[in-house]
């Protein structure tokens, strides 16, 4: 049974606006003009127990608004939202015991206190027993490798260290559901991998249901069973990443190392079955559609015209796929 059920959620924000300039500012004192912004315009989806779902969309598409409604912070204008059979904003206290939230751009730790103090405060806030708390903390400290800086004030932590602590803080009460809003934003490569591995393990070993919003497509590719794409306040597409890729980026990259250097015209003129994307030195990148031409045929054509030293076939980068997808969906 679905743990998260969302039907026809709408949320309209009123945004004050005025034109630039002093006179407009003075006018604004007397009469404010508001523009309605439809952040959510009939969003529906379901997430089952133990799923790890990516929630994607360009900036301003309504991702954070959805997460805030799911965590009971915002009240929608209309629509239904049930999480473990509760309506978040109506049974807030019971609801928040079951969920953990990480807002990647915000902090829930007390800035001037050692991390451990924040954890102990959360222990009291969530009424955790000392045994449960210690067990959970020990496990988190070990998997996220926190022991070296538990006594360090939060303001002195690096962003990567802090994000690991934020994750810990959100999981101390062992929530059944975890909402991650851009958890890897601004992290270096190593920290990203640590966080990513941890999310994967949490989902696998504890069966925690996770909803992940991110702009990092590598996160999505490494983690998500399924993705939903939101734009203009609506879910425009959902499915497995593989399927989306197949639908929007059927072509493959065919990268060839040639025996000599060529100029673009020379190569373009002699190859008809694939499209030359770019040429750098003696490396040529082609796009081809495997339903029209097989790699073998393409290689055959190429080696008839050129000396081919090496061949590499790969998927187009996921970032490109998503960018094209946004473009095609016009969001």
């Amino acid at each position, binding site marked *: 049974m679905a743990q998260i059920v969302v039907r026809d959620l709408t949320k309209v924000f009123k945004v004050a606006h005025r034109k630039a300039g002093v006179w407009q500012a003075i006018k604004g004192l007397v009469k404010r003009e508001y523009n309605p912004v439809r952040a959510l315009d009939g969003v529906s989806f379901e997430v089952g127990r133990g799923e790890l779902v990516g929630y994607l969309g360009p900036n301003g598409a309504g991702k954070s608004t959805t997460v805030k409604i799911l965590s009971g912070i915002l009240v929608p204008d209309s629509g239904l939202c049930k999480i473990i059979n509760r309506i978040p904003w109506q049974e807030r206290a019971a609801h*928040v015991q079951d969920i953990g939230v990480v807002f990647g*751009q915000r902090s829930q730790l007390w800035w001037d206190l050692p991390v451990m103090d924040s954890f102990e405060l959360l222990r009291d806030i969530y009424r955790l027993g000392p045994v449960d708390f210690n067990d959970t903390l020990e496990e988190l400290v070990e998997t996220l490798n926190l022991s070296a800086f538990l006594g360090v004030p939060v303001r002195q932590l690096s962003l990567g260290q802090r994000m690991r602590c934020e994750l810990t803080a959100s999981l101390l009460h062992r929530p059944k559901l975890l909402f991650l809003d851009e958890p890897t934003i601004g992290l270096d490569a190593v920290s990203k991998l640590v966080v990513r591995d941890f999310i994967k393990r949490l989902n696998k070993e504890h069966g925690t249901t996770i909803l992940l919003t991110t702009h990092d497509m590598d996160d999505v590719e490494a983690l998500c069973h399924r993705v939903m794409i939101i734009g203009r306040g609506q879910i425009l597409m959902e499915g497995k990443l593989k399927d989306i890729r197949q639908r929007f980026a059927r072509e493959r990259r065919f990268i060839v190392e040639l025996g000599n250097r060529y100029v673009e015209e020379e190569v373009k003129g002699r190859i008809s079955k694939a499209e030359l994307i770019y040429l750098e030195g003696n490396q040529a990148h082609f796009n081809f559609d495997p339903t029209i031409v097989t790699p073998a045929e393409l290689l055959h054509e190429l080696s008839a015209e050129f000396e081919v030293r090496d061949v590499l076939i790969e998927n187009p980068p996921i970032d490109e796929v998503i960018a094209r997808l946004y473009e095609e969906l016009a969001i």
Partner: protein
Amino acid sequence: MNIKAYMAIMRVRFMLLVQYRVAALAGIATQLMFGFVFVMILEAFYFSSTVLQPMSLKEAIGYIWIGQAMLGMLPWGGDAEIQNLIRSGNVAYELCRPLDLYNHWYARAIALRVAPTVLRALPLFLVSLFLLPQEYALEIPTSTAFLAWVLATLGALFLGSAITNLINISMLWTISGEGISRLLPALVTVFSGMVVPLPLLPDWSQKVLTLLPFAGLVDTPARFFTGQLAPSEIWISTARQLIWTIVLIIWGRRLLQRGLRRLVVQGG
């Protein structure tokens, strides 16, 4: 109610606030200076007046010192941290905790009022009780007056925290809090008796002053300590403080509910 959590929040906030030692020292110096200025003005005023005043000079001087010692208890402004939470949008996290937000902020307000008071009051009491020349010193109260003062001070703390929390909640509308934190001290210092002891203000104003909530902050405890009010009056004054505290808490809760409904957590 999750008392343990609120106590923990209060403790943490308190710990953070008492670590500003330089601010505490500066505070002590300022309060001593202001105390002397007020005492000298009062003395000049008493010696130049031929009318019988409603309180003796000795009582008025004691009143001033109590006021200065307990200055940190006055609700001058809101909690800067809460203001930051609201401005930056981090308030989102406060909203997804299994806590009542009003109580959560109230616990912090208590810490915000107690911490600076603890730092300033003790040294100020020591100086004004034992180190000053007899005629300018604070007099040691009788034990019943002292007990009444303790009760009245507790009442002042809860009242002051309710006002502080109202200021916190008002940030949901104004965001910067600048306006209120300039306007409020003017109101609070005058009507609480911080500037001029309330009994010395004109007779016609006395009724209004005792009806306003602010008298419960400085005037009430100071009058019990100096013996200007008999300890037996404590029940009436405590009731007055309590009623105002309850009214302000109910008002604050309503405002918070309204504020949260229109809250848009900004950005990201």
